[in-house]
C-alpha cells in the first residue's frame, strides 16, 4: 500500500547538469510532466477524433448543392437551424429522443443492477453449478443477434408488444458481457474478508450487497453504465424490427430521414447531430465519475 510507483521520485534525484529537455524525453510519461512531443501528438489525436463531429455540424448547416462544391465548405453557417427544422418535420425526432432516453436509460439501469448482482454471485458466493452456469452465461455471447431475431420477434408478437418500447428494453436488460465484466472486477477488487466482516457485523446477503459490494463496485458500474448506454443508444437492428417510424428510437428515426430520390445529406446530418447531443451530455456528466473511479481503483490496488 505504501510502495512508491517506480519513477515518481526520480525527478528529485536527477543530477542538476542534465538538461531538462533530455530528461523529459527519456521518461516523460513517468515523471508526470508531458513534453512538447506529447502535446503535439495528443492535439493531433484530439483533432482527428473531433473532426467527424465537426463535419456533422458543417454538413448539417449547408445544402446538398453547397456540400458538392469543390472545395467543400469548412465553416458552419446559420443554415443549421433550417436543417434542424427540416429534420424535425420529416421524422418525430423529439419523440425519438424521448424514446431513446427511456429505452437506453431502462436498459442501463437494468443491466448495471442485474450484472452487478450476477457478477457478485459468480465472483463471491459458493453454490452448486456455479462454473457450469457461468460457462452458459458466457456462451450466450457467442450466439449472434441475427440468429435470435426471428424467435424473439415471434415472442414479442405473441405478447402483442410490437411497436412498444418494452419490446426493445426487455431482451437487453442484462448482458453476458456485463455479468462477466462485473465478476472479473469484483474478484480482484472485493476482498473476501470485507464480506466476512459484513457477516460478522450481522448483515444479510442482500445488505452486504447493498452496503458493501455496490460501493466497492461503483467504478466498474460507472464504466458498464457508460458502455451500455452508448450501445443501447446506437442500437439499430433490433429496434428497426420491433418498432415503427411512428414510435421510433433515434436510430430508427434517422433511418427515415432525408429519404427522397436524392438523399438530403444536410438534413440527415442535422438529425444525426440532434440524436448525438444527448449522448454527449450523458458522457460529460458520467465522464468525471468514471475517471475518478478508475483513479480510486488504481490507488487502492
Amino acid at each position, binding site marked *: 500500500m505504501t510502495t512508491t510507483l517506480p519513477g515518481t521520485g526520480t525527478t528529485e534525484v536527477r543530477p542538476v547538469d542534465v538538461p531538462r529537455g533530455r530528461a523529459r524525453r527519456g521518461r516523460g510519461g513517468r515523471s508526470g510532466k508531458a513534453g512538447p512531443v506529447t502535446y503535439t501528438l495528443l492535439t493531433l489525436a484530439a483533432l482527428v477524433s473531433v473532426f467527424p463531429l465537426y463535419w456533422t455540424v458543417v454538413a448539417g448547416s449547408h445544402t446538398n448543392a453547397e456540400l458538392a462544391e469543390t472545395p467543400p465548405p469548412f465553416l458552419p453557417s446559420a443554415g443549421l437551424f433550417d436543417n434542424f427544422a427540416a429534420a424535425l418535420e420529416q421524422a418525430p425526432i423529439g419523440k425519438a429522443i424521448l424514446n431513446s432516453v427511456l429505452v437506453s436509460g431502462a436498459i442501463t439501469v437494468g443491466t448495471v443492477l442485474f450484472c452487478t448482482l450476477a457478477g457478485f454471485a459468480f465472483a463471491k458466493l459458493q453454490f452448486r453449478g456455479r462454473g457450469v452456469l457461468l460457462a452458459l452465461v458466457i456462451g450466450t455471447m457467442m450466439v449472434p443477434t441475427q440468429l435470435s431475431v426471428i424467435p424473439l420477434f415471434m415472442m414479442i408478437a405473441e405478447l402483442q408488444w410490437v411497436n412498444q418500447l418494452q419490446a426493445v428494453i426487455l431482451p437487453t436488460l442484462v448482458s453476458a458481457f456485463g455479468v462477466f465484466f462485473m465478476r472479473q472486477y469484483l474478484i480482484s477488487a472485493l476482498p473476501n474478508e470485507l464480506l*466476512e*466482516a459484513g457477516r*460478522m*457485523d450481522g448483515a444479510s446477503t442482500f445488505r452486504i450487497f447493498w*452496503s458493501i459490494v455496490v460501493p466497492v463496485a461503483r467504478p466498474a458500474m460507472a464504466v458498464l453504465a457508460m458502455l451500455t448506454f452508448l450501445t443501447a443508444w446506437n442500437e439499430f437492428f433490433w429496434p428497426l424490427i420491433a418498432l415503427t417510424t411512428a414510435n421510433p428510437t433515434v436510430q430508427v428515426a434517422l433511418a427515415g430521414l432525408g429519404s427522397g430520390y436524392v438523399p438530403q445529406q444536410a438534413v440527415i446530418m442535422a438529425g444525426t447531430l440532434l440524436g448525438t447531443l444527448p449522448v454527449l451530455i450523458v458522457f460529460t456528466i458520467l465522464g468525471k465519475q468514471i475517471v475518478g473511479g478508475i483513479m480510486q481503483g488504481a490507488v487502492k490496488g
Partner: protein
Amino acid sequence: MATVTFDQATRSYPKTDRPAVDALDLQIDDGEFLVLVGPSGCGKSTSLRMLAGLEEVDSGAIRIGGRDVTDSPPKDRDIAMVFQSYALYPHMTVEQNMGFALRLAGVAKSEIARRVAEAAAILDLQDYLDRRPRALSGGQRQRVAMGRAIVRSPQVFLMDEPLSNLDAKLRVQTRTQIAALQRRLGTTTVYVTHDQVEAMTMGDRVAVLKDGLLMQCDTPAALYERPANVFVAGFIGSPAMNVLTGEVVDGGVRLGTAVLPVPRDRLARASGGTGRVTVGFRPECLELVPPGEGVPVVVGVVEQLGSDAYLYGTVGDERSGAPLQTSDVVVRTEPRHAPEPGQTVWLRVREDALHVFDPVSQVRVD
C-alpha cells in the same frame, strides 16, 4: 462475557486426506485471553473461523456461554472479529465503520453515537472519526478494527493475527495495548498468531496446534517449563530449546564422547526398550564448566546481543576430529567473556532444567 467450548470440533476440506482441524477439545473460561499458536497450516485460523461461523463444523460442537452455536450463522453468535487485513469498509468513515453493526442491529442513533464515542476515546481515535480508512495509517486502521469490535460489547472477541501488518516497533506497542484493553474490558478473547512471542506475552493460556491437532494448552509459564512434547518444546522459546537424541548408557545419554546424566527412572521410561532417548535443554539452562567435565561443544558462531551472547555449536571436541553429531546446540552466555568461534567449551545442564522425551512418541517423560 461467556465461556467458549470446542467439543471434538473437526473441519475437513474436500479433497484433502487430513482434517484441517482434528477433534479439537478446548475449554476457554469466561474473561480469559486464549492464544492459538502454531506454524502456518496448523489449523489455528480455521479453528477461529469455525468459532466465528465463517467455516463449517463437520463434526463435534462449538458452544458459546453454554449455548450450542455449531450451526448458527455468525450474526447469532454475539461475537466480534478483528481481521488480519482489518477489512474496514473503504467507503465508510471511521465512525460509520464502527457503528455499522449497531446500525444493522437497529440500535438508536444517539446510542450508536455514544458507544462509538466511548470506543474512540478508549482507542484514541476521536480526531479521526470523519476520516475514511484510506486516509489512516496502519496503526490507526488497526485501532479502528479493534473499535469496530469493541462498540458491539460482544460476548467473545476473535482476533486473527491483528498485528501482522504492523511494523516491528508498533507491533510490540500495540501488543501490550491489546492485552491491557482485554484485561480492562474483561471480554473472553481468542487470539490467533504464528508468533510465539506474541502468544507468550499476551495469553492467559496458550494453545499450541500442529497439523490440526492440539499439542498442549496451558499457561505461558507452564508451556515453557513443562512442554508436553518435542514439538511444543521446540516451538515455544527463542532461541529454541536444544533437542538431541542419543544412545542410552549407564546413568545418562551419550552425546558425542560425553555422557549427559539423566535420572535413571526417567531414562528407563523414555527409552521404552529402544535404547535411545531424546533430551531437551534451553539455551539459558547451560553452565560453562572447566574442560573435561560435562559435554564438549565446538563453537561455530557467536551472536552478540549486548545483554547476552548466544553460541551456536556442535556437540563434539577436537580430540574426536569431526563433530560426532550434526545437531546444533545453542548456549546463552555472559556477553563480555564469550568464547571465540572454533573454541571448544564444556557445558553442564542444570539438573532441574533437563527435559526428557520418548524418541518414538515424542511425548514428555517425568
